[in-house]
Every structure is written in C-alpha cells, then in structure tokens.
C-alpha cells in the first residue's frame, strides 16, 4: 500500500515538474483563499510578475506548521496573528523577512524582523444607527449605558477578535479589568465561538451592538450602499489587530519567497487590501485609500501589547473575563 502510494506520488511529481513554472506554496487561512477573500487577486497579481505558480493551501495555520515542523511544505505563511507569533517564532521555522520597514503606515511602531504586517484594523463595537439612537461615545459611557443595550461578543478562548477584546479592556483598565467585565456582563447578550456567528446575530437584529472592527462599516457602505452601520469610536483607544506574513527559513524557493515578501509591501498589493479584506493596508498612506475608507471614522489612539507583553497578561486577562462573566 505504502509503496503504491509513493509510486503514485512520484508519478504526480514527475508529471507536474516537467517544463512548468516553479511553485510557491503559501499557507493561508481559509477565509483568505476563498472567492470572497483577498487571496485570488493577490495570486493573480503576483503570478503576473514572478513567472511562477502561487498555490494556496488553506486551513489552520499554527496547528499545521507546528505538526509539520521542518517537514512543512510551506514556503510562505500569510495571515498569522500576534497571538500565535510567539509560538511560531519559538519553532525556529521562520527566517527573517528581509524587508525595509520604512514604508509601513501602521498606527503603532513595528520593528519585527521575522513577521511582516500586511493589513490591520482595530477592535470596535459596531451598531446599527437605526436601532441605537444614542451610541456610547466612550468606553466609560458604554459601562454606564442601560442594561437593555445588548452586546454580542466572541469568546477569547476560541476567537482571535475575542482575545483582542480582553486585551483591549486590559490595556485601558489594567487591574480594574475584572470589575469592568462585571459591569459589562448584564449587557452581554451572549458569547459566540467566532466572529461570523456574532455578526450574524447582529445583522439579524438579535443584538444591538457587536464586537467587530473599526473597518466593518466600510463593507456595508461600499458593497451594499448601506450607511446605517457604524463603529463606536472611543477616546480611550482601540486595540490593534494586525495580520502578518512570514517566510519559512528552509524554503526551497528562497528567491520567490523573498519576491513575495517584497510584493506584500508594494502599492499594488496594498491597494487590493482595503476592499479585498475589509481592513486597512499596512503600507499605504490614508490619502490613497479607496473611497469609503478614506472617510471612515478611525480612533485617535491605538492600544497594543507586543508579543512579550501580551504573553504575560493574556492568561490573566482571559481568566478575569471568564470569572466576571461566569457569576
């Protein structure tokens, strides 16, 4: 059986290797590679300049590269979040990205030599203007809002945006975080596994506000011509959520991988991000953002724990959240 499979695999490799273009294998989250994500246009754009075949392998990133270890088939991994970069870095699988970081236009300072940001957003509570007439104008105002303002959030133990949310509260309130969650608890309608479930509950009218991103209203404005959705912007600041790309150190395609890392920061790639991924480009001045994004209300202040800080507060922050909401 094993022999037959090896033979079959060998035939497949032999038949594709022939005169065809070299392949750059990119691991990406499932949403990224779908017809409705940014993946397809990025693939097209890159293939036009590299003379290669970019192939996405969609799925969970961290578990898969950790399981594969140095046997990984990936050349590049795109779509990592800061909550897993510590583990990914520790694995020693990733090499330096080698890019000049001066074109970055992030609201936080970024000096990481391994993981390169390609887009970002901030956590925010999104509401429907027709249903919430007096949205809270600050986090403090949200805490004292009446309890019939119902919010739906994501679980920090199963969702990246949920984790960013507990870090957000921790960044604003520090040691007071648990009592802040206790104040929020009566307003929290429910907690969902991931962002999609929460957002579905919100658009169905079940909840008044949903934990989402500052960029969410842009989808409704641009794709649906609907300007009734807005993100409540708080002066206390919003938590930074960034997506990253990393190069596998032992890649068999080092030149192509380097070329891809370069492409990530190019204007062509960065222009596709806003309406492709409904988030903000990591290296494009605001004046070049597409219409609908350039007028989006964005926070003055961006909060962020770097990887090391996050590692020290994360467990405690999630536990405080769990305790306060379990009462």
């Amino acid at each position, binding site marked *: 059986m*094993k022999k037959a*499979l*090896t033979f079959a*695999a060998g035939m497949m490799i032999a038949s594709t290797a022939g005169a065809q273009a070299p392949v750059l294998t990119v691991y990406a989250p*499932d*949403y990224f*590679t*779908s*017809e*409705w*994500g940014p993946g397809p246009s990025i693939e097209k754009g890159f293939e036009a300049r590299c003379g290669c075949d970019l*192939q*996405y*392998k*969609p*799925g*969970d990133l*961290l*578990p*898969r590269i*950790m*399981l*594969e270890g140095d*046997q990984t*088939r990936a050349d590049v991994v795109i779509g990592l979040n800061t*909550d*897993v970069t510590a*583990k990914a870095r520790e694995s020693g699988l990733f090499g330096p990205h080698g890019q000049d970081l001066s074109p970055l236009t992030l609201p936080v300072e970024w000096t990481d030599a391994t993981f390169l940001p390609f887009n970002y957003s901030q956590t925010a509570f999104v509401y429907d203007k027709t249903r919430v007439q007096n949205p809270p104008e600050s986090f403090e105002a949200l805490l004292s809002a009446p309890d019939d303002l*119902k919010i739906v959030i994501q*679980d920090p*133990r*199963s969702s990246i945006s949920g*984790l960013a949310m507990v870090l957000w509260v921790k960044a604003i309130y520090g040691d007071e975080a648990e009592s802040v969650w206790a104040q929020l608890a009566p307003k*929290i*309608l*429910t*907690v*969902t*596994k991931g*962002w*999609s*479930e929460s*957002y*579905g*509950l919100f*658009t*169905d*009218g*079940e*909840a008044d506000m949903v934990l989402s991103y500052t960029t*969410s209203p842009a*989808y*409704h404005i641009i*794709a649906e011509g609907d300007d009734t959705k807005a993100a409540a912007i708080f002066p206390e600041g919003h938590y930074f959520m960034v997506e990253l790309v990393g190069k596998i150190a032992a890649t068999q395609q080092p030149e192509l991988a380097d070329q891809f890392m370069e492409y990530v920061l190019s204007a062509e790639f960065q222009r596709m991000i806003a309406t492709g991924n*409904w988030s903000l480009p990591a290296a494009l001045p605001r004046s070049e953002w597409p219409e609908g994004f350039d007028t989006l209300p964005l926070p003055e202040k961006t909060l962020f724990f770097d990887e090391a800080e996050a590692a020290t507060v994360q467990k405690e922050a999630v536990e405080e*959240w*769990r305790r306060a*909401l*379990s009462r």
Partner: protein
Amino acid sequence: MATRPVALIAGTLVAGLTLGPVAAVAWRAGVLTGLEPADWAALRFTLMQALLSAALSVAFAIPVARALARRAFPGRGVLIALLGAPFILPVIVAILGLLAVFGRAGVLNRVLEAFGLPEVSIYGLHGVVLAHVFFNLPLATRLILQGWLAIPGERFRLAATLGFSSRDVFRVLERPMLASILPGAFAVIFVICLSSFAVALTLGGGPRATTLELAIYQAVRFDFDLAHAASLALVQLGLALVAGLVALRLSGAGLGAEGLDRVVPRWDAGGVGLRLLDALWLALVALFLLTPLGLVAARGALGVFSLPGPVWTAAAHSLAVALGSTALCILWAIPLATRRGELLGLAGIALSPLVLGTGLFLILRAFVNPFSLALPVTAVVNALLSLPFVLRILRPEAEALQQDFGRLGGALGLRPFAWLRWVYLPRMRRPLGFSAGLCAALSMGDLGVIALFADPDRATLPLQIYRLMGAYRMEQAAAAAVLLLALSLGLFWIFDRGGRANAGS
C-alpha cells in the same frame, strides 16, 4: 448472518479510525496532562446539559412517535421526512433559525409583547437544552417510531380480540418495546451532546456554558497544547463508553418479534380523547420544529437562484461526498449491527472532531500529501460519524431478523451472500433506506475535519457557507443554507422513500 471476519474487519476499522488519531496526538505530545480546575467546571456543565438534552429529547419523542405510529393522515410522510431536517442543518444556521423564533427579536417575544407580557430570554442552560432537543427530538422520534413499526400488527389484532384497553396494550406490547429501544436512543443523543460547542456557548449565554469541546478547541488552535487536547478527548471517549455500556445493559435482549410487517388499524386507540391527544402532540412538535426551519427557508429562498458559481460547484462536491459516505457507511454498518458493534460505533461521535482531524493529519502525513485527500477524508469521517445513528436504526431489526429467520436460514444452509440477497435486503429495506437517507443528509451538512485538510480547489457547501459569512455576505450565506437544506432533505427523502416503497402506508 454476516460472517465473522467481515465484522472483525469493520470493527477494527472503526477502532483504528477513532483510537488511532487519539493515540497519534497523545504520542506526538509525549505526555498526558491532568485536568485543570476550569476543565472540571466544563466537565460538569457538559455532563449536565447532555443528560438533560438526551432525557428530554427521548421523553418528548415517545408521544410523538406513538402518534405517528397509530395515525394515518394526509401529509404524514412529508412530516416524517421534514422531521429529519433540524438534525442536518449547519449549526450556525440552526441557531439563527431558533433565534428567529425564541430570540430577543424573535416571533415568540413579539407575540408576548403584543399581549403586554414580559420578554423571555433563550440564553442559559434552558436555551442549550432547547436547541439540543430541537436537533435531536426528530432523531429520537424516528428511532422510536422504527420500534413501533417493528411490533407485528398481529399482536395488536390479538390484543383487540382479547379486549385490551389502550393501557393494556401499552403494558403488554409497547412498554417492552420502549424498554429495549430507549436506552440506545438516549445513549446516542447523550454522546452527540457531549461534544456540543458552538450551540452550547451561543445559547448558553457565555463562559458558564463552557463544554469540554471548547477546551479542546482552545488547546489545539490557540495553545497548541496537544497533551491537554488528547487528555480531554480521552475523557470524552470514556464518558461515551460508559453511556454505551449502561445503555447496552439496560436495553436487554431483543424483541423476538415474528410477524408480517404490516401496519394494521389500532382498535384500542379509536377514542376521541386519544385522537385529540395524538393530534395535539403532532401539532406541537410540528410547530416547534418547523417554525425555525420555515423562517430559515423564507429568509434565504429568494436568493438561491442568484447564488454565485462557486457555491453551486461546492454543492456538487458535497453531493459526491454525501453519496460516497452513504455507500461506505451502509457497507460498514451491515456487519456491525450487533451489541458490540453498536458500542464501538459510539466512539466515532464521541471523539472530538478536532482531535480526530489532527490525529488523521499526523498519520496520513507520513504517507501522502494531506491536501490532496480533503474530499476522501471528509467522506470517510462523515461515514464514521454517521455510523452510530445507522447502527442504532439497523441493530434492533437485524437482531429480530436473525431471531426470526436465522434458524430457517441455517436449516436451508444459506450462504452469507444468499442470506443477504433473499432474506436480509428485502426484509431490511425500510431501515436501510432510512439509514442511507440519514447518512447522506448528515454527510451533506457536516464540516468534519476540513480545517486541516482543506483542498484549495474543492470546497464543500458548508465550508462555502462559513466563507460567505466570514466575508460579511450574510444574505448569500442564508441562501446557500437553504440550498444545503433542500439538497440534504432531497437526498434523505429519496433514500428513505426508496426504503419504504413496498412497506405499506
């Protein structure tokens, strides 16, 4: 009269596919870890909600199945087919459907408001149980209905000539049947509810409703703590094993029915009171199950025809997976429809899908490129996950068949193939059709282990629904869900109908 070696191979496959992945994950982790305090809280909640959900699903299913067994009315077949629908909906779609009825902005609260009554909240343990009953009551009903239909009509006739009242019929004929069917139905529902996660969390209202499966998800996806994940998965498997053993012990021997398989009139249940009672139960259950489904359908139906191409391609992939799973599952189930086989089959649904996927990935990676296997692996896993339901349906009837015709077959010296051809297939047509329908429908809807095996070019329909939602396209997702629902129900109906074609009304 399947031969022993075939049963042995089928059983080894099930054991290998469930224990293999856990072992691979545990081996990779090197150690197993003890449970943390938060895990104990999760274990308590998991057990409580699963016990309540299984008990209520089975309890409510009894009067509904009885009404379906003893009443003939127009639309009965359609109602029975639609009863399969909640079970096969993608979780998120089912949740949105339930919230359209029981949620803050739902129908129920609008009605209460109109009468000036206070709002009721679905969020809490009661919401979790309500959702699990919504999913599993139909399954329980069908399992119990099979039991009722397996009671030979001659016995009811005999009871009538002896002047039995409805109560006597229950005591003498129906109670023994229930005693042998209910433990198995309870066990299978209890075990599915053990690994509930998205439903429990969303309708449970927050971290109080944390289940073991959430802890496993966190361990694999966030912390990459395989030791913890494997330990929790073994706890889940252990609970399922205990439930299965208890059910086996309680269910006792088979029915030993010998009859002509015909539905006969029930002279004992002709009274107006009993008729009204049955009508009431049927109306209640139809209202409870079909209202959320109707609202889901109404929301998405119009969008179905403008769905983009990739959704239709995915639908074709899902159909192929479903048909493959069904064939595999039925072939797998026939030799395993025994007491031991059924216990073994429970392991498939008791194992966390995430641990199953991770373990399979670890094992297969040594031989082939896992990405090229996305659809075949999905088909095999779906067959494995459907197996316990199919075994629950087949076993009672297969045992009765063995009891009724085994001696005759032995006396005639029937070889296994001849037994299958002349005795098994004709007599087992109805349960086989129902099994195939259920398996096909489940395989259409299940996301299985796709997270690690996603094929970039061949997405399934449930995956496309999640992708649409992830890209803000909630309305298209609703339309795709209606397509999924229609295809699943269509498959279910075709197989189930095929099985009942010559089995009377």
